[in-house]
């Protein structure tokens, strides 16, 4: 299983702050497409993906126990 965290506008879109999915062995890009299919409207948002608290690349492969976060455009400061 992997854990996925949602924040800000993406959290409002999904209606949940986190969920778990069977997704080990697949890529970040595959996960992004899966979630875009599951949550209408997500594909229109520009979202980066973090894996284990570091920004990930589309081809990075997810492992069992990974903690993923969808990072919408940040606006700190």
């Amino acid at each position, binding site marked *: 299983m992997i854990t996925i965290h949602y*924040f800000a506008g993406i959290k409002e879109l999904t209606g949940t702050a986190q969920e778990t999915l069977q997704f080990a062995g697949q890529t970040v890009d595959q996960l992004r497409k899966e979630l875009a299919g599951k949550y209408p409207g997500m594909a229109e948002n520009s979202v980066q993906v973090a894996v284990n*608290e570091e920004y990930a690349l589309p081809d990075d492969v997810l492992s069992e126990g990974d903690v993923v976060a969808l990072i919408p455009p940040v*606006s700190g400061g």
Partner: protein
Amino acid sequence: MKAYSVVTEPINPQLYADYVLRPEAGAVTLFTGHVREWTKGVKTLYLAYEAYVPMAEKKLAQIGREIEERWEGTQVAIAHRIGELQISDIAVVIAVSSPHRKAAYEANEYAIERIKEIVPIWKKEIWNDGEEWIGDQKKKPGGEMI
């Protein structure tokens, strides 16, 4: 205190200036970012900040490392507050010390620019007639979608 932290309580900037002060320092720059009431003609009632706290603290520390590599002899402390903040509250504090003032000024501005690029913190503006996550430009004042 931690040099790089996401906090929920009001920020006391003096703590951060004191933290970076040391005998080698000839300059300390202290930046505080505050909640602004008016943005592009729209009145903000208050802001709500949210963070991915563990990653945000890592990214703040990364910014500190970038600065200490780029400007030799600097030392950095940064805190960002989350939760509901009222007008004029301090949202972020950045303290940089260096042997000479130029590096302290430059590094401090670099820190706030990098925070706005890479640190997973989000700001929601709340108005009389609506609200919006900044960075997500889909909702506009009045609530209509564009």
